């Protein structure tokens, strides 16, 4: 008798809201579509929290020498704003889209490891709530999202906030790693037999690459976090210079994680743009292979640029020169992508729907963010401008102009598929204009604030000429963004109350997810069309002029 019993795993009934009764299935469900939506709700919830923190920051900074918020509280707020927006908004939102659409786009019925998928979501959620619990447990983390030592050591931050930061980040990091493992294995094993790895949709490709970035980046952070935790809890002195430790090693660990982290957020966002632009330009993506390969170049180079966060630390000119070179080089593949998206619009037939509007805003604002990023690769400019509001402006142009705009584009684009209802285009345009104008008003002016000398992370500033004016304008912009978000929520609320009416393929798109009902059934595909090209549904719709055949 053999010891093996081959259990065909898919025959087993996995728990899902759609199969059983009872509210407990919200927790037990391992359906990738539902977990994807839960990720998005998580991101939306924390976007509100992080947004309110941002509003508090702008209120405090609106006038000089303001005493609205105490410095201790301000430090907690800006720290939590950064952590929230990066780990609890941008990443869950992108992971949510990927969890929902990656299997759909490659013709799979589930993720490779559905239970691991659910585990990843819940542990991310727990990590997030744990970090916010610190507000009630003696103070939130207050040493910045980068948590530089020795400031975050017991001697200087005795409140437990930093411990919550460490544990929370380790948990969300484990969540991200399990999501990444799932994306990679799913892409490798569950593709429809027709789809070769070099013809997957670009969103899938970038999520796939992103998986490797996550696998390699988070352990570096975790190692540093564990060392810091051992310092704080067991009185070791890894990072305490007065006892033989090093104040610099943490920065290396953190930025060796931190810079790939930027691309961990940017790559899936680029993937969304690469899906949306072609559909609304009615053309295939311009230079598929360059968009795809530049992602690899970005992913590889991302690990050799971290020292540009530390140019002011005082390394020698020799070391700085090489990091300047690699940091400038990483701008080239990124720029190539922008060129290809614009190329996709060339000779197209452009429909200015709400997702496309966000893509246009993305193209403009992300270019600003990318170019101002290059100025930090030019070492002498970095020496003047790092840690000023110029940098704040830069990173918001990358994170909001680059990542959040893509997330909005993806939300409007995929919402019909996820909910079966179309979001109102009229309200969507209101949201777009308020948010984009507000965003540019808030952050464009901060470039100038940084150049005239305002450092970042200060809770108040002296009454110098023009500082108040620019800060007030910036705060007014934040109010616009807030209004835009209120409209988004109103739009979501009213739409979700309507009956399901969205067609299967409202945008006349080409990737496989639009071949399912809106929303898809528990089992995604009963049958899938044969795939010969990168645009399977185009072939079905235009049998007379099929896409470039690859298969």
């Amino acid at each position, binding site marked *: 008798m053999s010891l093996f019993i081959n259990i065909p795993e898919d025959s087993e009934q996995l728990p899902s809201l759609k199969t059983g009764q009872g509210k407990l299935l919200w927790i037990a469900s391992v359906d990738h579509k539902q977990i994807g939506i839960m990720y998005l709700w998580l991101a939306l919830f924390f976007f509100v929290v992080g947004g309110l923190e941002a509003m508090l920051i702008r209120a405090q900074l609106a006038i000089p020498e303001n005493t609205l918020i105490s410095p201790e509280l301000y430090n907690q707020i800006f720290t939590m704003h950064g952590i929230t927006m990066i780990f609890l908004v941008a990443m869950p939102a992108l992971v949510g889209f990927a969890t929902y659409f990656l299997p759909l786009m490659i013709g799979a019925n589930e993720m490779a490891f559905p239970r691991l998928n659910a585990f990843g979501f819940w542990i991310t959620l727990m990590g997030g709530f744990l970090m916010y619990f610190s507000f009630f447990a003696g103070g939130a983390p207050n040493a910045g999202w980068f948590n530089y030592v020795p400031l975050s050591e017991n001697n200087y931050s005795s409140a437990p906030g930093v411990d919550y930061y460490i544990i929370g980040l380790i948990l969300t990091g484990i969540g991200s790693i399990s999501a990444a493992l799932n994306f990679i294995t799913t892409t490798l094993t569950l593709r429809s037999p027709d789809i070769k790895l070099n013809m997957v949709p670009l969103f899938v490709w970038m999520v796939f690459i992103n998986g490797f970035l996550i696998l390699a980046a988070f352990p570096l952070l975790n190692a540093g976090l564990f060392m810091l935790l051992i310092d704080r809890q067991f009185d070791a002195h890894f990072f305490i210079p007065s006892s033989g430790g090093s104040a610099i090693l943490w920065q290396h660990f953190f930025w060796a994680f931190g810079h790939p982290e930027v691309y961990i957020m940017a790559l899936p966002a680029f993937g969304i743009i690469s899906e949306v632009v072609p559909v609304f330009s009615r053309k295939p993506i311009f230079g598929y292979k360059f968009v795809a390969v530049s992602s690899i170049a970005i992913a590889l180079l991302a690990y050799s640029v971290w020292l540009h966060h530390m140019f002011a630390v005082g390394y020698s000119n020799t070391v700085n020169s090489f990091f300047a070179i690699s940091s400038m080089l990483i701008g080239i593949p990124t720029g190539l992508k922008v060129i290809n998206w614009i190329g996709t619009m060339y000779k197209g037939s452009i429909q*200015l729907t709400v997702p496309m509007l966000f893509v246009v805003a993305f193209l403009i604002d992300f270019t600003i963010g990318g170019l101002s990023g290059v100025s930090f690769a030019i070492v002498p400019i970095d020496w003047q401008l790092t840690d000023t509001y110029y940098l704040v402006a830069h990173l918001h142009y990358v994170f909001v102009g680059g990542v959040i705009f893509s997330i909005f584009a993806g939300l409007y684009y995929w919402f019909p598929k996820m909910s079966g209802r179309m979001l109102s285009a009229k309200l969507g345009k209101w949201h777009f204009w308020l948010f984009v104008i507000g965003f540019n008003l808030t952050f464009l002016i901060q470039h100038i604030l940084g150049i005239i000398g305002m450092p970042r992370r200060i809770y108040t500033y002296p009454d110098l000429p023009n500082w108040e004016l620019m800060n007030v304008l910036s705060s007014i912009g934040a109010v616009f963004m807030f209004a835009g978000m209120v409209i988004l929520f109103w739009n979501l609320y009213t739409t979700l109350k309507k009956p399901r009416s969205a067609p299967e393929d409202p945008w006349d798109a080409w990737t496989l997810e639009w071949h399912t009902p809106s929303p898809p059934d528990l089992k995604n595909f009963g049958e899938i069309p044969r795939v010969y090209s990168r645009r399977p549904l185009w072939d079905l719709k235009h049998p007379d002029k099929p896409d470039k055949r690859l298969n």
Partner: protein
Amino acid sequence: MFQTTNVELIDKLFIYFLVVAGIIFLLVVFFVFYYLFKYRRKQTAEEPEQIHGNEKLEYSLTAVAILITGIFTYLTIDTMRKVQDIPDNPEPFVQIIGHQWWWEAQYPETGVITANEIHIPVGKKVLVQLNSDDVIHSWWVAQLGRKMDMIPGITNYVWLYADKPGEYLGTCSEFCGAQHAGMRIRVIADEERAFNSWSQQQLEPVAQLDDPLFKKGEKLFEEKTCTNCHAINGTPFTMKVGPNLTHFASRKHFLGDLKVNNEENLRAWLHDPQNVKPGAKMPNFIFSDQEVDALVEYINNLK
């Protein structure tokens, strides 16, 4: 002799960058909007021509990008070498030590020790040694030179150059705790003669007044354990935890350049430090009004 200052070098590089970046940005904006209007979907449009890409364009644009990168790499390295040309055996003119949340300055040549208001001579490249006593700070006076971190356990050097006399403002640029915002810098550039006389004046011993209030203040200063943190030259008290107060009254600002040094602010500070500068290391001693009077009289005569 005409000399390009470090700041001018960096500014020049920044302007080059702005020009190139501006051109690229305008090109992107132009093409996005031009295509947006030109290829906007008409009512009865058919599917447009399906273009998959253009390899020549991609390669030539990559080549252009690499060329621009090469030029800026050269400019970066060139400027970097000019701005940060620290000799092998540096002999700093002034050593600045960052504390939470104030600055200490020591002049090795003369032995002057002061806090927060840092004097340098005009028209002379001054080498500064940067250290930190607790957490990471960052020295930045934008008009005088580059930014440089102050890291505990590591010594960094930076050049400062002021071409005309005046007061230059800067701030700590690395987040360093509750009063990061209250850690501002004021560098005072003096003409050579004024600088020398300032140095002389700083080296003089503390004036002793016969005023009973002054005497009472002096006694209080010791009794109330102020001396556990603050040093005053010429007395047995040399603790360096807090700013050296020997010539406190000669400074125009105090508390890390947060407040103007006048009697009103000093009084408020002594009454409740946490109210004036929340988070500051100075504890609240709960002085009575009389004690504050005496201490203010004492401290304000430390010239």
